[in-house]
């Protein structure tokens, strides 16, 4: 009888606790759902960004504007010229008549490359067995220039082989290239993992830090701390909705990547989700840490922008390859959690790697989490000044 009552009381106590916790989570959800504009951005951002990266941001060259200066205008030069223009990489923008016009042609930035056939091109081929083609590229964008020169050389090389179909050229070496993991060299393959990292940082770290700082700024944090809830519970209740939002964002990106852009997910899906959750946890603890050191929204905002978003975008290997950076930046990139997360996601999705290859990176993420939580707990002040 007595024991039953105590049990029930204990039961209701635990029940009450759960209820209170639930109410807290619900309150947080209301806060988020009420701010329609921010919500729209939170879900619109991943969709817009992945569509942009997938469709518009591409380094594949097509229809580059080319100008041709043909000083001989004979049969051979016309043949080669037609062959160049027949490829999908180039389209004729202008026929030049003299060398003086070359500089003029580059001036407005539309023409990327000029091809010059020397005079008596065909005749020289016939009598001297060799003729010259000069390629002048606008190298203000070095990679485009390099790529275009290479395409042109390949086309001219093909033409040379055709010219000599009857005679055999000694010492021909062909390079048989195979592109692994991404045979069509699509840029979206490269960006999807990074996009997940950036958006998780945005939602989990930036939003949480601002939302906690806002309670402080508006003075409502005091009310929360005075409630029978413990500080730890308050913080957990605060971050639960953001975990769900972040997961939803990650799923949206993965689905769009898979169904719209056919980015494969070769590895195990459960493993991918565990790693994503791990990273969300990491981002949240970062957000909590930032909120403990900042008192106003603006400080929290700027701190997360400068300390989280920019490094995540710039130094994680999301857009710019890390191995090209100078040594100091390469060293700094090691302490950026997104760097390790991007390696993990890329390997799981595109290479189908399992935990046996990724345990090191995973361990590093866990280490970050432990460290950040320890620091936040130490810094967290239950009393406000």
């Amino acid at each position: 009888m007595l024991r039953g009552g105590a049990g029930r009381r204990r039961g209701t106590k635990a029940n009450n606790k759960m209820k209170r916790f639930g109410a807290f989570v619900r309150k947080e959800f209301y806060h988020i759902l009420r701010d329609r504009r921010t919500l729209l951005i939170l879900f619109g951002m991943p969709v817009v960004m992945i569509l942009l990266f997938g469709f518009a941001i591409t380094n594949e060259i097509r229809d580059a504007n080319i100008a041709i200066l043909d000083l001989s205008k004979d049969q051979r030069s016309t043949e080669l010229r037609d062959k160049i223009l027949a490829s999908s990489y180039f389209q004729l923008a202008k026929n030049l008549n003299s060398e003086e016009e070359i500089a003029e042609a580059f001036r407005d930035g539309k023409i990327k490359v000029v091809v010059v056939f020397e005079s008596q091109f065909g005749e020289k081929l016939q009598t001297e067995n060799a003729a010259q083609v000069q390629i002048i590229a606008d190298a203000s964008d070095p990679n485009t220039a390099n790529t275009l020169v290479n395409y042109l050389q390949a086309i001219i090389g093909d033409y040379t082989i055709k010219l000599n179909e009857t005679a055999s050229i000694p010492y021909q070496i062909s390079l048989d290239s195979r592109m692994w993991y991404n045979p069509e060299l699509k840029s979206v393959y490269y960006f999807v993992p990074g996009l997940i990292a950036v958006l998780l940082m945005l939602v989990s770290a930036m939003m949480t830090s601002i939302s906690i700082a806002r309670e402080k700024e508006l003075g409502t944090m005091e009310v929360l701390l005075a409630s029978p809830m413990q500080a730890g519970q308050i913080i957990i209740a605060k971050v639960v909705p953001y975990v769900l939002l972040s997961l939803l964002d990650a799923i949206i990106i993965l689905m769009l990547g898979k169904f719209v852009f056919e980015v494969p997910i070769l590895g195990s899906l459960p493993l991918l989700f565990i790693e994503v959750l791990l990273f969300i946890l990491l981002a949240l603890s970062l957000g909590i840490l930032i909120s403990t050191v900042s008192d106003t929204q603006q400080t929290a905002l700027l701190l997360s922008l400068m300390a989280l978003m920019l490094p995540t975008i710039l130094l994680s290997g999301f857009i710019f390859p890390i191995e090209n950076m100078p040594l100091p930046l390469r060293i700094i990139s090691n302490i950026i959690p997104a760097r390790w997360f991007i390696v993990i996601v890329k390997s799981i999705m595109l290479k189908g790697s399992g935990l046996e290859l990724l345990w090191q990176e995973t361990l590093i993420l866990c280490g970050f989490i432990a460290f950040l939580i320890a620091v936040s707990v130490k810094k967290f002040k239950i009393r406000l000044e």
Partner: protein
Amino acid sequence: MRTILYLVRKEFLQIFRNKGMLPIILVMPIIQLLVLSFAADFEIRNLKYYWIDKDQSTASRLLRSKLEGSGYFILSGTSFDTQAGAEMLEDGETDLVFEIPRHFEKDLINNSKNSIQLTVNAIDGTKAGLGSFYANRIVQDLAAELRTEYLSRLKFEPVKFQQVHTTYSFWFNESLNYKTFMVPGILVMLVTMIGAFISSMNIVREREVGTIEQLNVTPIKKHHFIIGKLLPLWVIGLVEFSIGLLVGWIVFGITSEGSLFLLYCFAAIYLVMVLGLGMFISTFTETQQQAMFISWFFLVIFLLMGGLFTAIENMPDWAQTITLFNPVRYFIEVVRLVMLKGATFWDIRMQFLVIASYAIIINGLAVWNYRKVA
């Protein structure tokens, strides 16, 4: 006129009084310019290659020394096992694997044709593409060298075959330095970010804190208020631009080929546009958080579609059409044309026209949407 002067003074006082704001306005851009210019480097160097030489001949050794000498490739390991190469690629320890087949040289002499196998980790498409181009160029160089040597050794008249030689030259940036390309673009990004963020948050803040009501009950006119708000920010934007140019010159040695005056004229009009955009955002947001998020959202799109990192010509046609509405695109074009190629006013008259119209439209919208009620 006096009213505007007072308002401008008030703005400057507020900006300079905020100890947190000044470093953000002045120091951050410099750090960003430095970090970004070093980080945003798409120049492909130091590709790691794995070497599987099943032939061990003069030709294969020659190829390897050519790869080493090119400056593009760094050896990550060697073996005689195809499987080992595949594993290195899977672990991400290497970017490319070269495999020279057995009897490579012998076959080359007997059949005159042969192929080398190259396997590339293509997750990063750009890097993979350029890497295989470089490799191909080096292999073709080798073939040409071997051919000439072979022909010179022949005592009798060789079989006739015709060759087209190509020479190439890179204009405007002979050393193919990526920074020359990126720094002017990043400058645009900084000016745009500072302009849009500060102007949108500045006005919203008055609303959030409640001081906008005090301003609203004063007899100042709508245009007084707007000019008083934007003029200080406009000055800050131009200062920002100058700092960026200076850093580009001192640190990276990048000077403008074209007229600086022209550049400043364009920047002045462009800033009016950017500030108008920030003001427009501030007219329909209530909190700084919202203003920040919305500016961030638009800026990301503008910057990605602005041709800063990837060329606009490579985008699909519909995306190219969208970029016509992107103001950042025009400024990036102008800065690169003027600084790298020395374009004159006549070359960029279209960009001037477009950006001036955008400035008028967006500021018109902002003024129209601004209400003197809280």
